[in-house]
């Protein structure tokens, strides 16, 4: 393999430590043809001859930025590697270095150089010394920083999530423990039925939170899957899972109505999550003075698919309106839920590239409107021909 000359700029200030620095580069001699630049004259003459790869390790004299500029004026494609323990990566990259490494990484120079050469001038090194993942360039740094920010955000959300979720999982459990304590302490005087009912209520709440967490995670993890759907079939299915909300005059089969006159394309799992949450909210926060009535509709509007869920329930107070879609936000009146339901709805709608809005009047009811991009409309005849 042809050896690429590597220019090592050690000291332009006649630094006494240059001999020591030089010694540190000797092990690289086998892999590269090393040319040491120790002063201004050597620099100028090497610039004139042409420089392909330069390693800047000087601590005094000319600044590395100035040096990089001068070399690149002459050899536009020169690779400039900065060895410094002080610069930060972003500054180094934006001010003209291709790579920043610290002094302890100098032993890995052959790897870095091979990788940079491979990207910059592939013809020079046909067989790079070591195959490695490419080192960072400006564009890659930008991308890394973006990713880093995203990760920080995700970490922050995860922290908050774990804190809130652990509380919401423990709260019903501690309630059950408290009830069991009471049951054991005074089983004789207390009506056990009441304690058992409350335990069941707590356990259902816990179960609900766990379901919500699973739905949240499923929405985050899985790809959108489009298939032809009918509103009625989805609702009939999900209503079975909401049986526990039934009581007295509240029968889901009569309370939940839908208009089901066309087949549309969407993601079944996600639509089920959205509708389950909205419908169960409508039932859970029903008005005590009347039988709940939930109407679900799906229709085309311009180039969108619109789904609405309207109820005659308690309604949402104006002061909560801006926050109902926040993670773990619970309004005073709606404290029976996990505080995740509407957050999951809004995240799921986002995943489908849609929008959700809500109109509500206290004591009259609420209507949630979801607008999704229309994928392709399939009419009734096509669907039945499938």
């Amino acid at each position, binding site marked *: 393999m042809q050896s690429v000359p590597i220019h090592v700029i050690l000291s332009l200030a006649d630094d006494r430590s240059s001999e020591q620095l030089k010694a540190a580069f000797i092990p690289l001699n086998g892999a590269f043809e090393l040319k040491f630049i120790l002063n201004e004259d050597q620099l100028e003459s090497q610039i004139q001859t042409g420089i392909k790869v330069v390693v800047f390790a000087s601590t005094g004299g000319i600044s590395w930025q100035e040096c990089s500029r001068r070399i690149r004026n002459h050899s536009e494609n020169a690779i400039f590697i900065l060895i410094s323990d002080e610069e930060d990566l972003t500054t180094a990259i934006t001010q003209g270095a291709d790579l920043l490494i610290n002094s302890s990484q100098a032993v890995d120079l052959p790897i870095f150089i091979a990788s940079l050469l491979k990207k910059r001038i592939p013809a020079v090194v046909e067989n790079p010394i070591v195959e490695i993942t490419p080192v960072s360039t400006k564009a890659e740094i930008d991308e890394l920083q973006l990713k880093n920010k995203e990760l920080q955000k995700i970490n922050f959300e995860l922290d908050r999530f774990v804190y809130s979720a652990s509380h919401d999982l*423990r709260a019903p459990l501690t*309630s059950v423990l*408290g009830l069991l304590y*009471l049951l054991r*302490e005074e089983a004789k005087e207390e009506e056990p039925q009441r304690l058992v009912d409350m335990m069941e209520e707590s356990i259902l709440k816990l179960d609900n939170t766990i379901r919500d967490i699973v739905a949240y995670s499923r929405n985050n993890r899985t790809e959108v899957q489009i298939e032809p759907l009918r509103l009625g079939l989805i609702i009939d299915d999900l209503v079975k899972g909401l049986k526990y909300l039934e009581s007295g005059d509240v029968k889901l089969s009569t309370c939940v109505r839908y208009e089901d006159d066309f087949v549309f394309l969407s993601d079944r799992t996600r639509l089920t999550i959205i509708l389950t949450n909205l419908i169960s909210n409508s039932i859970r926060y029903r008005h005590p003075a009347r039988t709940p009535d939930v109407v679900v509709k799906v229709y085309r509007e311009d180039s969108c698919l619109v789904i609405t869920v309207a109820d005659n329930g308690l309604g949402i107070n104006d002061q909560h309106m801006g926050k109902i879609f926040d993670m773990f936000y*619970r309004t*005073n009146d709606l404290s029976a839920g996990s505080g995740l339901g509407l957050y999951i709805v809004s995240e799921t709608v986002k995943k489908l590239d849609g929008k959700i809005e809500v109109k509500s009047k206290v004591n009259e009811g609420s209507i949630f409107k979801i607008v999704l991009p229309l994928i392709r409309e399939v009419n009734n005849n096509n669907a039945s021909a499938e």
Partner: protein
Amino acid sequence: MKSVAFVLLAEDSSIDLFIHRKVIQQSGLCNRIESCTTGKEAILFFQNLKEDDLKPNLLFLDIRMPDMDGFEFLEEFDKLPPELRRNTRVVMLSSSIDETDLNRARNNPHVLAFIPKPLTVEKIQELFA
């Protein structure tokens, strides 16, 4: 067992309120128990106290409540006129096992103790041990 005159509960879960009342009654801690279901309501309770009213000796305070949580309550509590709050010590009562919550509670001058839920007679007895 030491007893006090008046205990106030701030707790949003109706089941937990039921448990707290039962356990406090069993412990013989006090004969008057009142309750609020949010932090805001608890602040209002103190603000509406008249000079001659009996002040709560202990406040059992939940952390996670809608509207105003336990810690936000403590900040507002601190701003109340001293004559309204000086007879009351706060016992934080929560299902939280978060170290940050525990430390925040411990470092608050109004807080007498942090009790992890569920409340039991033994835990109440330990308060005065």
